[in-house]
């Protein structure tokens, strides 16, 4: 009994502490995954960008909240008529957090380092079109491309292309030194990463003095942390089932935005049964997207009919191509010789959209006679078995990179999809600069993927932000993997 009283007193004391309201110029964000390190040029993990992109590190261009390309460390640029030569004017007076000046030599170093043979940059493809990079003077950089690249300025805004200094590049993983409005403060592994305002910032100073990113992979405890006030904002809340709870709570607002995450039922196009387009189409007919969105995502997400984000201007709605039709699915399966049933493996990575979505899909496939054996795996195994050795039949994953339809043109990407028609369209697209022509090609590319029923196209992940009332200037959408807090302030 004594211990219980003691416990109650203890709990009450804890409550008193967290109840205090300070003059707010600090922000605590919850993030689902802890970054393995903090160097965005040395790893693909989205979690790295979600902490440091734009806050600590900046690139030549930056991506705005609406996905537009804005000037970053380059204040302006010109592009030659043939689309091959880009000339950037750099900003004056920019300094890294350690006091060293930023100039064209740093640009040469950063891009050269990323392109080098022994570079561990995860997006070397972004740099692949670069033929030559020169610095005529300290404030100018000229980049010459091998061929016109429609997305080059957007690509320069990726976290993998941020500017680093030769003096600090090697220690950026644990002590990131960039040019951004926040400097790195402290990292308690497994718990939180703290940033503080960079008072020597070249541009408008950030309004927040301190920003903390708390690592909260578990939905239940993130919800609790929001409720108890330990966290102010969860930009991308992982448990859609709890959103109703927050909508009903006057302290919070739920901000539903868009992400670049096409969630798909990936199929191994060379596995025995799935190499038959009739089987792939049967699966497309067997899938009930709305039931998946309702059952696994509690209504959160937008159905997609191809590998493309619905909020993109060039999006074509193809969700009607394979309506949910079990009879049709069974007929197609019978036609393909699987009237008596078909057994497939469904390999599921850890996120709940995959695990829950997988349960729903397995049940939907069972209804048309496809027995999907659920194999849950960790990311490491998924990368090896599914992504690398393509030893799988079906898997569910969200492709969160922006404008990534080009993966279907890659040789031996894990779908094992090969289409001359698609490759031609994509090749034309990369070289096209005329907006109308680009839009038409993008639409065609989407149609080809849907017609070939390469994968089961499920839904676009929504960005479900849970924000404490009064916070402004955060991004509702996620055009790129980032939690840009540079403009955030409390009302």
């Amino acid at each position, binding site marked *: 009994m004594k211990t219980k009283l003691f416990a109650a007193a203890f709990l009450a004391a804890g409550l008193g502490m967290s109840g205090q309201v300070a003059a707010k110029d600090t922000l605590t964000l919850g993030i689902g995954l802890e970054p393995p390190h903090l160097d965005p040029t040395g790893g693909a993990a989205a979690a790295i960008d979600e902490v440091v992109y734009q806050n600590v590190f900046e690139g030549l261009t930056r991506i705005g909240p609406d996905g537009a390309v804005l000037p970053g460390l380059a204040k302006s640029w010109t592009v030659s008529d043939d689309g091959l030569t880009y000339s950037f004017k750099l900003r004056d007076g920019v300094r890294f957090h350690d006091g060293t000046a930023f100039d064209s030599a740093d640009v040469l170093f950063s891009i050269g380092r990323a392109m080098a043979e022994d570079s561990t940059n995860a997006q070397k493809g972004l740099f692949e079109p670069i033929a030559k990079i020169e610095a005529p003077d300290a404030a100018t950089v000229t980049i010459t491309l091998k061929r016109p690249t429609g997305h080059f300025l957007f690509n320069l805004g990726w976290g993998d292309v941020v500017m680093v200094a030769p003096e600090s590049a090697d220690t950026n993983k644990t002590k990131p030194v960039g040019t951004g409005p926040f400097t790195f403060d402290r990292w308690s592994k497994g718990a939180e990463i703290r940033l503080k305002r960079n008072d020597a910032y070249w541009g408008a100073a950030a309004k927040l003095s301190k920003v903390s990113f708390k690592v909260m992979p578990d939905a239940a405890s993130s919800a609790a942390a929001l409720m*108890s006030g330990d966290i102010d904002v969860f930009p991308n809340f992982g448990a859609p089932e709890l959103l109703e709870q927050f909508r009903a709570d006057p302290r919070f607002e739920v901000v539903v935005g868009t992400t670049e995450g096409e969630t798909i039922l990936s199929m191994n196009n060379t596995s025995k049964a799935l190499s038959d387009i009739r089987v792939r189409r049967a699966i497309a007919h067997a899938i009930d997207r709305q039931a998946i969105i309702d059952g696994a995502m509690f209504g959160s997400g937008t159905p997609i009919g191809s590998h493309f984000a619905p909020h993109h201007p060039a999006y074509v709605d193809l969700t009607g191509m394979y309506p949910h039709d079990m009879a049709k699915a069974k007929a197609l399966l019978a036609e393909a010789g699987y009237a008596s049933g078909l057994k497939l493996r469904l390999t599921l990575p850890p996120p709940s959209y995959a695990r829950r979505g997988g349960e729903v899909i397995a049940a939907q496939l069972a209804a048309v006679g496809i027995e999907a054996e659920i194999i849950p795996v*960790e990311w*490491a195994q998924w990368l090896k078995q599914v992504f690398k050795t393509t030893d799988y039949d079906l898997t569910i994953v969200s492709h969160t990179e922006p404008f990534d339809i080009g993966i279907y043109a890659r040789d031996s990407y894990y779908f094992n999809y090969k289409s001359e028609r698609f490759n031609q369209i994509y090749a034309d697209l990369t070289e096209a600069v005329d907006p109308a022509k680009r839009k038409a090609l993008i639409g065609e590319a989407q149609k080809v993927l849907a017609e070939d029923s390469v994968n089961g196209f499920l839904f676009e992940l929504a960005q479900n932000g849970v924000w404490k009332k009064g916070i402004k200037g955060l991004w509702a959408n996620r055009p790129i993997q980032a939690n840009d807090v540079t403009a955030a302030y409390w009302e």
Partner: protein
Amino acid sequence: MLEFVVRRLTTLAATLAVAALIVFLVMEVLPGDPAEVMLGLNAQPDTLAALRAQMGLDRPAPERFVSWVLAFLSGDLGISYTYDVPVSELIGERMVVTLPLALMAILFSTLIALPSGVLSAMFRGRPADTIIMGIAQLGVAVPNFWFAILLILLFAVTLGWTSAGGFPGFEDGILPALGALLLPAIALALPQAAILARVTRSSVIDVLGEDYIRTARAKGLPGGTVLWRHAVRNALAAPLTIMGLQFSFLLAGTVIIENVFYLPGLGRLIFQAIAQRDLIVVKDIVVLLVAIVITVNFIVDILYAWADPRLRNGGGNV
């Protein structure tokens, strides 16, 4: 006695060596390449090769085993693949969560179990005994992670007194940090307390039936003195052994409990490390935990000899 200690120490070292080998071999067959995990989905092959060489994954297994053991003995636990910091630093950071948690759990467990066990023995067969032992039966049966969820349901969801998880860290003061460990420690302590109470009860009952207690009573010593001075102290041997065993349960129990409350402790670290294929961290922690368990059992053996008068006098037939 010295010979006994030396022999036990030799066994201890041998057990550790075998354990290290087993853990290493088990880790070797783990599917998944840590370099790939670190670089993610769109990694290029040359990037992977570069990182693999950087991490020493291209060397043969026996060479890696030997260098790991040698480094481990000299206190160098290696560099974590995922965090790129020394593992010892990582373990140190997590220990400040797990160690207070385990200690609090042991403390709660002992505080609850010893008095109720003794009480139960004193009132053997009477209602107090029945109630205490009934609760203990229940305590053994309730899974600690479910109990944890019930605690969250009551204190965090319904009453809103405490947060349902997370750890504020010690920088913001010791009280909030310990407060965050309170529910987890209670959840961990309950099943252990139940077991401990039962062992204490039967041990005290056994001792109360011994000849020397009856003699003490016959000599006219007051009941309380007999109970506390003679019976309880002599009855401590069995609970002590159980506490030693419980230590390994507690350490393992933190894996689940730290997951329920999302505490950045050792248990969470190893769970994450397995998922992220951070092999060095997994190997180091398991071997460390095995070492702790063996050492604690070794200490308990010696304490046992101290607590049991028959063993201390070199007599007895156990």
